[in-house]
């Protein structure tokens, strides 16, 4: 039987979450690959306007959970609901409509390498809106300017740096003004300054667009800086160990694992002096 996760009250002053209706509701979700269970019995809710962090050690299933939330992988059991609609229980047309309400920033950026940055942003616009070509081109330039990439419309992804690719990918993610933004390890591969700027951009864009953000990361600076609520996935029990604002989890969580995770392992065995009792 699973131990219920530790739940802390959502008391963070920086939270701008609105309403009581969950934007995303995950119920009894079990994730598995070829019969190998990665996480089981997951339950959590993401409220509208939150920046919700999914954190945990490497290999605990964070990115896999994201793939379940964005409709790429079907759950082994359980459900993922958006505004009450079960992503995997509705017909294909409804699911496609639901997916268009999401914007996703992949860990690698995942810009389509055969297209320019403007074309990358224009593609979803041309497929899902009735805007003219000129309007689409203007909108693509505008989205690029939002992420500080004005003038790079005709560049190919391979011609710009990793940080710029991430920003361009963010511009594509917000192309259709999504209600929910998903971020998979947004700061991976970036220097601390670029990562900090990207974090600012995430906060700014979610506030401006009124979007909900779900961020998969184990970057402590990002977690503590931008997260308004979070869950911690445990690799040993294969379940959610705790839920609550990251700052509160760091301060008052009863779990040593979580406090270690949020304090870079301070107080763990590694920091102990070998002369103070460590044995082979």
């Amino acid at each position: 039987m699973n131990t219920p996760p530790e739940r802390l009250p959502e008391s963070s002053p920086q939270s701008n979450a609105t309403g009581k209706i969950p934007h995303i509701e995950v119920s009894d979700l079990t994730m598995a690959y070829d019969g190998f269970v990665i996480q089981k019995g997951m339950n959590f809710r993401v409220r509208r306007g939150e920046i919700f962090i999914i954190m945990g050690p490497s290999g605990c299933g964070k990115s896999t959970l994201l793939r379940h939330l964005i409709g790429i992988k079907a759950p082994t059991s359980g459900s993922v609901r958006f505004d009450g609609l079960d992503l995997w229980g509705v017909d294909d047309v409804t699911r496609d409509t639901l997916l268009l309400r999401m914007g996703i920033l992949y860990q690698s950026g995942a810009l389509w390498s055969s297209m320019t940055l403007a074309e990358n942003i224009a593609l979803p616009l041309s497929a899902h809106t009735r805007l003219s070509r000129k309007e689409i081109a203007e909108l693509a330039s505008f989205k690029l300017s939002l992420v500080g990439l004005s003038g790079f419309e005709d560049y190919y992804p391979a011609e710009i740096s990793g940080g710029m690719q991430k920003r361009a990918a963010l511009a594509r993610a917000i192309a259709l003004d999504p209600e929910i933004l998903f971020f998979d390890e947004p700061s991976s591969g970036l220097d601390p300054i670029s990562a900090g700027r990207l974090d600012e951009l995430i906060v700014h864009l979610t506030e401006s667009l009124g979007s909900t953000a779900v961020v998969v990361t184990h970057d402590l600076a990002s977690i503590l800086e931008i997260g308004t609520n979070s869950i911690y996935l445990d690799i040993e029990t294969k379940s959610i160990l705790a839920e609550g604002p990251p700052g509160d989890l760091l301060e008052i969580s009863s779990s040593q694992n979580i406090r270690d995770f949020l304090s870079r392992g301070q107080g763990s065995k590694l920091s102990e002096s070998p002369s103070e009792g460590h044995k082979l």
Partner: protein
Amino acid sequence: MKAKPPQITPSMQCNDVVVLALSGDWCIDAKLPPLDTIIGFLLQEKPKRATLTATDLGSWDSALLTFLIRLSQVLEQQGIERDDSTLPKGVLGMIALSQAVPERQDAIRDQIPNDFLTLVGHHAIWLQKDFFRLADFIGEICIAFGRLLRGRSRMRWSDVMTQLQECGPSALPIISLIGILMGMILAFVGAVQLKVFGAQLLIADLVGLGMAREMGAMMTSILMAGRTGSAFAAELGSMTVNDEIDALKTSGFSPIEFLVLPRIIAMFLTIPFLCLFADILGIFGGSIVSAALFDVSIPEYLQQLNVRMRPVDFEVGIGKCAVFGILVAVAGCFRGLQCQRNAASVGLATTSAVVTGIVFIVASDAVMTMMITALDLLKR
């Protein structure tokens, strides 16, 4: 300074305590003392506690650490309590680091069977699954093609044009070279035998009919499997690794419509022309060998071709090649989209695309040849 040889000296103290004294330089280029001596000593003396000392220990590196880890396992097996607190802090710190992350017993790992029958069964199950995945994939292509015909597809014709360039003009140099050589080889191999009967003129029949009906189509398709089918797999595989395929799906695009259809259409449209081109160059190559080595002039060669060959000979070869082209493109795209999310998998997908493409070509050629024979299409 000369390095001292590494040594571990066991000695018994009172109260069943053994002292294991480490001395010398424990480096990876030194010959380490055998652990068997220590094991023998421990079995003989049966101590309850072991104290490791390093008073005369010189320089050390990973050699000492691995030795100590093995030694600690031996002590543990024999139920001997150990005290290593007097070892250098660096040694203890490194060993602690190596044991800081426990090995995960339940990590996902493919179980590789180790006996023949299990291996055969394993492959049979894989083949069965692969067959059903391929059937699914072909079904999806048919649905996407239906949407294209009804004007509801999101396929971009600009992508088809790009792929046309890749599949057609870019492949001309290699098709030309192999086409001419194939014709020359056919002519030479055939002519050596035909000359015995004084029937060198039939070289034209051999090369013309051989190239038009079979060799031109087969050779062009196999070249396209190696050149373009593998490129499709590598391209789509890299897109999978970079999450570009997932990005397409979550942006509301079907990878089949967006990536696979343009490639199949481009291959279907270009490969018949490549086949015709290869046929003509093969026949040309045959004429060169005939004229140069077997006293068959080019006008005689052409006259014989004119007598023996009919349009249907070319049509059959080109028709076959169009089917091969579709199969090569399907194999390339199928393997590319099957790619796992790592770089090594892209290489495997590429190899697999070529092998699958060639298997498809040979199998479908056998089926089509039987059909053509049954329908008497080449009857004179």
